[in-house]
């Protein structure tokens, strides 16, 4: 009797747990499907890193109400940003970069960082130029993106490229990630049918050097000592007796294949 009772209890427990697990799985899938943000759905200024932002945003829309230009929108089910979170599309209504940043202090949860006050420090996105379709790059005097940029000459500059005497110079707009806030005014203003300058999430467009590169001056990179325990470090150390794996220094040692004499003929 006791046996059956216990058995029934265990089965019942397993059933309830199973039911909870099934619902939990569906629930998780629903959330995971939502938790994706399109590269052109930009967050308000001062937003935390995306994973923290998604967790902390209360989806209340106070930033949307505070935005004087109707830039910000709350995402709905079928939108390009996770449900209920604020975003803007640069090509539709860009961020006007209000000096007092009214959207940030109203955030009740801290998903928009209250310590954020300097709008020029915003990194909502990063502009990238399609040089093939850019009118300026094609030799026309357009430069609209340069004219509308709120941080002109810092975030965007014109590089003048001389051509042969019969043709005028090309004024190439160039974006500098160090100063680009991602406000999107350039994308909004771009006169081509599809914007030749796009403002996207920085991580979608920006490369990243390996840790062992340190950009010292200009285009000179130096190989750093990345630690004593790696093979590369051993290799770089002069007079190391240990056998190092062929790595960075591979091409300095002539030959590398077996049977070849260093410095000799093949």
């Amino acid at each position, binding site marked *: 009797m006791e046996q059956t009772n216990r058995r029934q209890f265990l089965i019942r427990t397993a059933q*309830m747990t199973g039911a*909870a697990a099934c619902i939990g799985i569906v629930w998780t899938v629903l*959330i995971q499907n*939502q938790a994706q943000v399109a590269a052109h759905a930009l967050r308000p200024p001062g937003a935390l890193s995306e994973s923290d932002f*998604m*967790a902390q945003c209360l989806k209340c829309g106070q930033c949307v109400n505070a935005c004087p230009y109707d830039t910000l929108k*709350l995402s*709905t*089910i079928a939108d390009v940003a996770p449900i209920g979170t604020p975003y803007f599309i640069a090509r539709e209504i860009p961020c006007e970069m209000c000096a007092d940043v009214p959207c940030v202090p109203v955030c009740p949860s*801290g998903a928009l960082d209250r310590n954020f006050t300097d709008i020029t420090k915003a990194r909502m996105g990063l502009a990238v130029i399609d040089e093939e379709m850019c009118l300026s790059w094609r030799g026309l005097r357009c430069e609209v993106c340069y004219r509308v940029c709120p941080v002109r000459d810092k975030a965007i500059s014109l590089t003048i490229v001389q051509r042969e005497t019969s043709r005028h110079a090309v004024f190439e707009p160039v974006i500098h990630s160090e100063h680009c806030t991602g406000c999107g005014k350039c994308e909004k203003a771009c006169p081509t049918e599809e914007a030749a300058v796009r403002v996207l999430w920085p991580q979608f467009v920006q490369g990243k050097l390996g840790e062992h590169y340190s950009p010292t001056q200009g285009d000179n990179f130096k190989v750093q000592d990345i630690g004593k325990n790696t093979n590369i470090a051993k290799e770089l150390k002069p007079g190391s007796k240990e056998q190092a794996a062929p790595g960075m220094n591979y091409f300095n040692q002539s030959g590398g294949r077996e049977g070849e004499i260093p410095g000799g003929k093949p």
Partner: protein
Amino acid sequence: MNEVKNGATMTTESAPQKPVSRPPIRHFQIPLTLGGKLYVWRFLIARRLVQIGVLILFIGTAHWGWTLFNQPVLSGDLSSSRFLGVIPLSDPFAVLQIIASRHMPIFDAFLGAAIVFLFYLLLGGRVFCSWLCPVNMVTDLANWLREKVGVRSLFIVPAKTRYWGLLLALILSFILGVAAFEWISPIAVMHRELIFGMGIGLIAVLGIFIFDLLIMAHGWCGHLCPLGAFWSIVGRVGQVRVAFDDAACSRCGDCVKVCPEPLVLNFKEAARHGMIRFGECTNCGKCVSICPEQCLSFNLRACIRKGAEPSQTTHNSSS
């Protein structure tokens, strides 16, 4: 009408100690006059006014820039808002989920959550559910239609399921690192869609309507909603309760029929405490307004005599 004094008629069920004499059963009948009808519907009307009024304050602030004292009247939505630009209000369950997701909101969110929490804690019951939640209008409509058409539930789950939903929401928040219920909550979806005017998300509301109408009676609000579960737990100790006068009750069962949370109208429990003590009670007032013997009324917990003995005094009031 024949007013029959206490003790003159039938004894229904045998109470533990002594058989209690009860008034004869008269079922509720809707008054024919408009005034009478409005009086019966007084709580329904008040609830709709509050629900729609709050919604309009939100919409007015968001769309037409309503201000008072040069401050936005009520900016935000039911997840979090700010009243007159100063008083923060946040959904404590949402904040709880954010904490469960291993994130720390700033002080404003905590302050807002505390204000809302204390308000409902003192008020008691699931006042949020029947007086503010916009989904309540949808499920009430579904319920009304369901009874009109006579749809029987396809299946039913225990009303306690919502507490498992609440627990699951917190566990998933922890695992996924986001406030799990806030991401699928049809309440938040409906409110956002209405205020920020987008429309597509109202499909979720339609889903709830269909679910409550055709699949499970009182399915969402009465069985599944984790937010309802949260407020049920909070509502246990609140002050505003439905008082129950056992001696006047004829056990006609009309209140049970009309109650969206049938389990809370447990006569034995209600008689023992002199009130509906369950936190699941939404204080909607449906039972209060239809009780033919008027033995149910809103009262403060402190004013309700505990363990109310069947009172021999006044229960023969009739309208």
